[in-house]
């Protein structure tokens, strides 16, 4: 009996050691992945503070004494504001980032407002009214989520040219009214958050159907709509292909378009300024993300996001 107890204990001890080893391994992997996720952004910010000379000679630095080279090539330097000044004021570069941010806010903000409001409206229509085509039309919305959107890019651009809607923000804002995955998410959300009795109570009180939606239902849907608004904002902010085909005038261009111009022209040897521009475009998103990360992670987990 005594022997049995001992053996049991030693097995238990081995078991704990295994769990501990596993834990150590898991944390090492997680820390390595954390470094992998952050390192590119750290290098970006640090390089934004280096002069052209320092970046162009980074290899020389790298190859000196082992202790020096790594530290010197990674540490930030002093040219952060000089790079910023060059990027924002250089006539040769002609990158009006201030205007670009305003443009991106207009487009992403407009598209987000429309997509969230009209998706809620559509989802409410499907959730509350038992009209004849309810089921087939909802199935249609589910199906079109699977259509690859870029397939229609060329003929969409052709249509906008024919309508003379180039150098105009409507082609990026108006189509946001039809956002199938947002409708799907809000429809799911309503089935748990909205009770039909409340709608009926509103009717008995004599409110109009539209009034019920705006005054009774919208406030209840706010948390779900906020989640969708965050993702709509990010998606529309990051949109590049379509604006790059339809916005020709520099003063109308969005941040991703200006960022794209950092690359591939004869001024692209100003590496410090390029890194500064990248930092400038990334910073607002990082701040936005860190403030709202709780809701964003929860939103991703709900599976309402599809890109």
């Amino acid at each position: 009996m005594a022997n049995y107890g001992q053996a049991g204990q030693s097995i238990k001890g081995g078991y704990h050691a295994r769990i501990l080893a596993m834990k150590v391994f898991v944390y090492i992997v997680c820390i390595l992945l954390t470094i992998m996720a952050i390192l590119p952004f750290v290098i970006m910010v640090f390089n934004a503070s280096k002069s052209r000379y320092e970046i162009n000679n980074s290899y020389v630095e790298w190859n000196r004494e082992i202790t020096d080279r790594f530290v010197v090539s990674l540490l930030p330097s002093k040219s952060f504001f000089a790079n910023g000044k060059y990027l924002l004021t250089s006539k040769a570069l002609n990158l009006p980032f201030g205007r670009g941010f305003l443009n991106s806010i207009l487009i992403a903000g407009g598209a987000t407002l429309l997509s969230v409001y009209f998706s809620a409206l559509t989802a409410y229509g499907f959730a509350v009214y038992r009209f004849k085509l309810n089921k087939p039309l909802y199935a249609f919305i589910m199906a079109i989520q699977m259509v690859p959107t870029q397939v229609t890019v060329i003929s969409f651009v052709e249509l906008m040219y024919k309508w003379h809607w180039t150098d105009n923000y409507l082609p990026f804002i108006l189509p946001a009214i039809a956002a199938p995955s947002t409708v799907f998410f809000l429809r799911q959300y309503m089935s748990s958050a909205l009770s039909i009795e409340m709608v009926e109570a509103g009717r008995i009180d004599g409110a109009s159907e539209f009034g019920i939606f705006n005054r009774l239902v919208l406030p209840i849907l706010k948390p779900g709509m906020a989640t969708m608004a965050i993702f709509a904002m990010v998606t529309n902010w990051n949109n590049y292909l379509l604006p790059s085909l339809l916005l020709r005038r520099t003063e109308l261009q969005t941040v991703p378009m200006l960022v794209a111009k950092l690359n591939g022209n004869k001024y692209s040897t100003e590496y410090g300024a390029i890194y500064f521009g990248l930092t400038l475009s990334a910073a607002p998103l990082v701040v936005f993300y860190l403030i709202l990360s709780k809701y964003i992670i929860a939103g991703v987990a709900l599976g309402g996001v599809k890109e």
Partner: protein
Amino acid sequence: MASSFKTRAKLEKNYCGYIFIAPFFITYIVFQLMPLINTFRYAFTDVRAWFVDQSQTSHFVGMDQFKTVVGEMGFKEAFFNTPVMWIMGFIPQLLIALLLASWFTNEKIRVKGQGFFKVIFYMPNIMTATTIGILFLTFIRPNGFIHNICISIGYVKNARMPITGTWFGRGVIAFINFWMWYGQTMIVLIAGILGINPSFFEAASIDGASGWQCFWRITLPLIRPIMTYSLITSLIGGFQMFDVPNMIGAGETAAVFKRDIQTIIMYIKGIAYTGSFAVGKACAASVILFLITAVCSLILFYVMSDRAEAKARRAEKKRAKEAALLEGGDL
């Protein structure tokens, strides 16, 4: 009873539903369905970009555009590169996500700081793809971070020369896709695993199943629908890959591996808006992209759907058929 039902129906005003859903459908028809139909229509004509030739009359050319496009080198390259780069990124993406999800939901390991790790791993996903593309481009060109490492390990001999190699460019794109998306897949899979009824795991541990057995026999089969969803959405997105390879393949690196990382959308945009502005040809390529995406999604859906269940359904069908045959024979 009947009268109360009638008043209820009257009170509900079900016709209002159509008014509520109308804006969605009008917008969808104008901005998405019409362009989709036009894509199919243009694919059979020799129409050119509207802004270069506004007085053109386009002609119906049958399958000609499809034949030309399929014969082009750029088409073959794009339709090879895109799925290859997607698969190269997606396999590590799914494996790492699955590994992390199984660790983060493991009650014995109890990883602390999960919230922090989730936030960090997901962060690259919300960043602007053009920014990410140019950032990695500056890393791989001379004096960039990755270029310096390549010199240190002897992969590149000359400090002024760009890194070459067919698979290097593809590897960079695949890595960026992996890096941007594994966090998203991980969070979705964690949600899936947490949604599994805990009594399954309790029952298994009472029966003496090991953690490994639990993972293979309970977790994996039960999160298969979510994995299928991840796989199919990733495939659809992967075939439309554009922003990152477009940035990496532009500028001074263009000559080095532009052809190795040219994706389908880059190719389509190229034929529509450069050279001969052949919108008809670009639409033919778009139609092919549409069909390939649809076929691949259906195949994946079929392969990934529950085989045991499908088998049971087929057996059921077979039995029904045999029974019907027997009956027919009797008659």
